[in-house]
């Protein structure tokens, strides 16, 4: 599913990823750990294609439409409501029965009551949950989650655990996290970035 | 030398001047590069000695 040989990425003079090899097969869960600034987010961005490698190469044999990417930000418009944001992404990803899928996801992540509220008024935790809805909206085969637990309260963390346990085995996952405790039992591969 | 001849030679001189200016700027660059290489070799030697 994901292959990388001699993968490297530099931002101007600063090298973030150096000579990395990877092979993640379908259904696996890769856990990426490492301190801040060690290149976890960069690696995920390289996988999803937001960043191009400056050395080596990386290949993901999946079309963009089958990949879900959760970044630090929720990648949603502050001025629009939760529903409008998900509706936009639903159309762009050509999701069948868009309304029902969005309704179910909002319900599941406890955002149904606030669906007509501007995302600008959301707390950090609510925005993260909206991000999760956005990522799961089109049922991706590959899930790239960058710090899924950051900024979440206890109830939200169990939601993320459910997502992981449900997806493990069925989908391919790459999770970058500070607190790997939650994820380590499910991980089939681990990568520690210095 | 009529005024127009002065101007023509001025034009030729301008071209020459710009090319020379370019060469001079380029020599600054070369000396900077040389300093950098010297620095790096010294750094490498110290690294190998350590």
């Amino acid at each position, binding site marked *: 599913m994901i292959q990388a040989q001699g993968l490297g990425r530099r931002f101007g003079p600063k090298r973030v990823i150096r000579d990395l090899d990877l092979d993640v097969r379908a259904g696996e869960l890769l856990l990426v750990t490492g301190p801040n600034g060690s290149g976890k987010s960069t690696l995920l961005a390289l996988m*999803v*294609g*937001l*960043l*191009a490698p400056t050395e080596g190469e990386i290949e993901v044999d999946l*079309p*963009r*439409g089958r*990949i879900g*990417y959760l*970044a630090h*930000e*929720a*990648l*949603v*418009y*502050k*001025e*629009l409501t939760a529903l*409008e944001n998900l509706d*936009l*992404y639903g*159309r*762009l*990803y*050509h999701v069948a029965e868009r309304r029902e899928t969005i309704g179910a996801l909002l319900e599941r992540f406890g955002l149904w009551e606030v669906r007509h509220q*501007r995302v600008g008024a959301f707390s950090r935790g609510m925005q993260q949950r909206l991000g999760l809805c*956005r990522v799961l909206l089109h049922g991706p085969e590959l899930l790239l989650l960058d710090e899924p637990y950051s900024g979440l309260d206890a109830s939200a963390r169990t939601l993320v655990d459910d997502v992981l346990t449900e997806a493990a085995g069925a989908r391919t996952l790459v999770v970058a996290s500070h607190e790997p405790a939650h994820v380590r039992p499910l991980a089939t591969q681990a990568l520690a970035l210095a | 030398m009529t005024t127009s001849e002065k101007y023509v030679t001025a034009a030729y001189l301008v071209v020459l001047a710009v090319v020379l200016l370019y060469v001079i700027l380029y020599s600054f660059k070369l000396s900077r590069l040389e300093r950098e290489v010297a620095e790096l070799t010294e750094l490498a030697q110290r690294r190998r000695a350590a």
Partner: protein
Amino acid sequence: MTYFADVAALARKDILLELRSRDTLPAMLLFVVSALVVFHFSLPSDASVTASTGLLWIALLFTALLGLGRAFTAEREQRVLDGLVLAPCDRSAIWLAKSLGVLVFLGVAEAVALPAYALFFGPVGWELVAAVLLADLGLAAVGTLLAAMAAASRARELLLPLLFLPLVIPVVVGGVGATVVDDPGRYLGFLALYDLIFAILSWASFEYVVAE
């Protein structure tokens, strides 16, 4: 035709954003009228028609610049552009939707500017309206691409005018020419040629501006 469905979805979002925040369009309207008023005072009483036409085009150019400066701010603040770039749709759909949005804003601003110009300065002929519409296409097409470029750089507000003005000199020439010369056909044709060339070039290269 999912391409146009994507463009429609993106354009719908842009209109929704503008209705919600209501900041770009009012600013453009106010700007173009105040610019015309300022120009009135900057023109000596015996100024020729060409001078006032020229000033109208300058006002339109900078109104477009104002609108373009706002074009990608929403996408940039929350890094939403990454979300759009990751969607399976063709990235030029983002450019087309945004250009249409800018075009609509420019059209509305001109719907106010041209009557104001007729009031303050002189008659507004059909060739001026035709030239303005044709010029809008070029300004929106090229401007949107340059706005995306500027959005990807550090000095956004500084960079956009520098990138924009040299590229739109032909639009001013075509526009002013079509209004002043008695046979505007050639100038309108030139504007159409400019729109065609630069719309295709912007459409084809937008992918490389937003993605690596």
